[in-house]
């Protein structure tokens, strides 16, 4: 369990990192928190010719208000910093509810927001949360820059829209619409393990308690975070009572791309989608009605 040989570069700035990435093309990997990449190297499952260490780039750290009212999280912000940040607490409570499920504090101390998103581990919680929140991601290369929605960014199992030479630099979480409630729940084998299945839900209601918008995203159903559009649409235009939540759960259970592995059969994943969709929707709905 020793990695194959690689070159190691410490980038001092985003520009330098992008320049190195451009030079190496597909042969280099950016090193963020290393919580996934280092094990992959030790198992010799990843064999980059070079690592470009982003840990010394100040510009990639920190959480700020976005111009349009949301928040911006620089890609190298540690997950633990995200979890404990006052702006996040205020503007993205779903993130705060989710973070305790992301591995253990030791791993969150080191793991970064951008690292988790760029790695796109299908059982990771942050991609589903960012999809649910409608986050936008800023991608830069030596010559280009662009913004993608989280929906556009995640393209499958360990797959993203990142092109060769591109680096994820910032995540922007938009402002919270009024009367919006959130909930996250997952079932994992042990505290801190990747989810067998998780659900991130957000529900926006009007003054009368009618659901105006719902977003439901599954963690680890099969091939990466998956939005449950049909289940979400079924809730719009009505209050969410137990029957409605239950029906949405049934739709989600029917729609998800359930796969099996050593820990969960496809049928069990469907069951978890059914149950957790119902539970998160009810909680999100109650919170939406209770908020201003």
């Amino acid at each position, binding site marked *: 369990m020793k990695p194959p040989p690689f070159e190691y570069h410490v980038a001092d700035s985003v520009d330098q990192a992008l320049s190195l990435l451009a030079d190496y093309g597909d042969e280099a990997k950016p090193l963020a928190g290393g919580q996934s990449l280092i094990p992959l190297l030790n*198992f010799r499952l990843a064999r980059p010719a070079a690592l470009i260490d982003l840990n010394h780039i100040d510009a990639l750290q920190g959480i700020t208000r976005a111009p349009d009212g949301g928040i911006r999280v620089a890609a190298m912000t540690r997950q633990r910093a995200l979890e404990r940040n006052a702006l996040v607490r205020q503007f993205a409570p779903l993130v705060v509810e989710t973070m305790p499920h992301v591995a253990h504090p030791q791993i969150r101390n080191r793991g970064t927001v951008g690292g988790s998103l760029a790695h796109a581990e299908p059982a990771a919680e942050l991609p589903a949360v960012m999809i649910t929140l409608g986050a936008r991601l800023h991608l830069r290369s030596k010559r280009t820059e662009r913004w993608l929605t989280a929906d556009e960014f995640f393209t499958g199992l360990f797959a993203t829209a990142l092109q060769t030479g591109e680096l994820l630099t910032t995540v922007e979480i938009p402002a919270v619409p009024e009367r919006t409630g959130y909930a996250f729940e997952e079932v994992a084998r042990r505290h801190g393990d990747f989810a*067998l299945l998780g659900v991130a839900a957000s529900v926006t209601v009007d003054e009368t308690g009618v659901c105006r918008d719902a977003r439901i995203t599954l963690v680890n159903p099969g091939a990466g975070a998956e939005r449950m559009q049909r289940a979400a649409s079924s809730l719009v235009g009505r209050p969410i009572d137990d029957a409605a939540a239950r029906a949405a759960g049934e739709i989600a259970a029917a729609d998800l791309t359930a796969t099996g592995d050593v820990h969960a059969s496809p049928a069990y994943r469907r069951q978890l989608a059914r149950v957790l969709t119902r539970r998160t929707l009810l909680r999100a709905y109650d919170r939406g009605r209770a908020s201003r």
Partner: protein
Amino acid sequence: MSTRQFGQRVLRTEDPRLLRGEALFIDDLSFPDMLHVAIVRSMHAHARLLRVDVAGVRAHPGVTAVYTADDLGALMKPGPVLVPPPPIPGSTFNARTQTPLAKGKLRFVGEPIAVIVASSRYVAEDAAELVVVDADPIDAVVDLDAALAPNAPLVHDDLPSNMAAHVAQRRGDYAKARESAARVIQRRFRYDRGAAAAIENRGVIANWDARTSELTVWDTTQAPIPVRNALASSFSLSESQVRVIAPYIGGGFGPKIMFYPEELLIPWIAMQLGRPIKWIEDRSENFVGTTQEREQIHDAEIAVDKDGRILGIRDSFLHDTGAYDPYGLTVPINAQCTLLGPYEVPAYESEFTVVFTNKTIVTPVRGAGRQHGVFVMERLLDFAAKELGLTAVEIRRRNYIPPNAFPYNYEILYQDMAPLTYDSGNYQPALEQAIKLVEYDRFVEEQPKLRAEGRHLGIGVVSYVEGTGIGPYEGARVRVDPNGSVTLATGVGTQGQGHFTSFAQIVADQLGLAPTDVRVVTGDTREMHWGTGTFASRGAVVAGSATHAAAMRVREKVVRLASELFEAAPDDIVLDGGRAYVRGSPSRAISLGELAQKANPLRGAVRPGTEPGLEATSYFGPERGSTANGVHAMVVEVDPETANVRILRYVVAHDCGNVINPLIVEGQIHGGVALGIGNAFYEKLSYDGNGQLTSASFMDYLLPTALEVPPIETVHIETPSPLNPLGMKGVGEAGAIPVAAAFAQAVENALARPGFEILEIPLSPSRLYELLEAARQEPRAR
């Protein structure tokens, strides 16, 4: 010292060293000129090995040597059968052990094929990728039932089938018992594979000193003396030319009792190259290359009378030994014998077939087959109780061997080759204490109310016995040095059990010292020549008893010398605080150090027959093992929708005879229970149809953490063993043994669904959901 140390909650004297990172573990060692090893292992579960091409490796910069089977010469022969099977009439045992490196055939994923020696482990691993292994895959033997089918591929081509052994034992007349039974309950039970997963993997460092013709080996073994003996024999050296040191070891749990190919190869390479050689097993190797435990399938039935009394048990089971069977029949015999538990079973018919498969070798892991037997028996009792309308507690109460029936002889042979005889026991108090501590009556009262609130809580109460402290023997040497320090040396290795403290307590009591005054040396063959090792929950019983005997003899020497000096009767000599004095005159004392000097005069004459020094060596070998017992009770809450289980309470009432140190015993129990919880609900070595391990990292092989293991409440009951002077019984494995049975009972009790039965271990939420769904679709009572 006025306070007896035996029985006190003495803090572990080794912990400061361990906690400060000052203890020596094998990977801490480094020597000038040392070379590092990587091992090329089979990626195939079953294949013809056609060619191993290492030409590309030799040219790789930094590589010193590379070895395949063809390079080993006389070393290339099958290893020893470490534990010969007991002489049970009519039994069959086909011994097949592995050669140090594979030749001709590959029989499991992880089997060593080639050894690369290089300037660093990194370089060695780079070079390992250059080895070309040309192998022709054969269908793998994975499933136990399929392994015995007539056309199954053969793990060992020279055998007519994949049967490694067959053993039948019986007591009484089961057929007759069955005829008179009110109920006969029959089930098939499956207990799948698990790993020991010690925090420290294996490792070997060897150094051959040509000037002194001495081989020194540091090894993470539980059995340094047998390893020394094997190396001396393999290299035609005298045993005094080989020194094996087992330093601090991060957990043994059984697999480190084995003698592995690496333990032979690394010293051999050190002798070939004349340089220190280091191999540290990594976790990926450990998952496939270190022995595993636990795959058995039981077809069992119980015959009970109308009151729930056991009339007889019949059991026929398959035991997976993996690709080879170097450890004999210890694990299946443990399962066969321990099934009987603390119960009177007048008729018992048990047979097992050991099966070769293309999987990692199976040898004892904490519990060593006992948990399988306990699971089968406890589940059968649960089902019998249900059919008869008894509680799980009541059916157990009705079947315990009564306290006046000891010694109790089951008339079948145990792993130590002696008849399975329980030395002493008093079983009902453990049950009553456990149900009192877990508040069983209150739980039964509250359960329906909680259920009405939608909460599914369940309780499980099970019993077990554990044969511990088996022979043959261990030794101990106690010596008082001229500086007054006292050293104890034993031959057993230590892997975290607290030997440094509990053995010191025994010595301290004899010599009037504090345990911290006694320096304990374990696991160094130069310090103690004779012994066997740390296994079968025997350290405290066997090495502890030897320690007691040696310390008593040193005490006699001290007292005799002091009585001569003080011209007082030996009975009037008091040993206290490292000094000896005449009772009533503590101010006129002589230190142990001064006595040690006087016992070793450098000039003048001694009386003929005088032995120098204050030193004694003693050995202890029990006539047979002592039987510990206990009751575990747990309360779980199950989410019926997600089938996830949370353990709310865990209670252990146990009896391991007289307790040396309750703190250490509780620690042993806590660790064992944690392991048992892992076995029951988290840990599973999953093999696919090709014999590939699909849970080969801690991402997928799930060890329970502090978050999954609840606080464990313990109560001690002490029924002394008559088989050793201090009345001790072993406790090392106890905690792990009955957990799965308690878990199954508690989860069934929580859900109480018709047709929902737990007949297998390990479980998972996904598997529980499947079982619940199956019961929902077909809720027939069985």
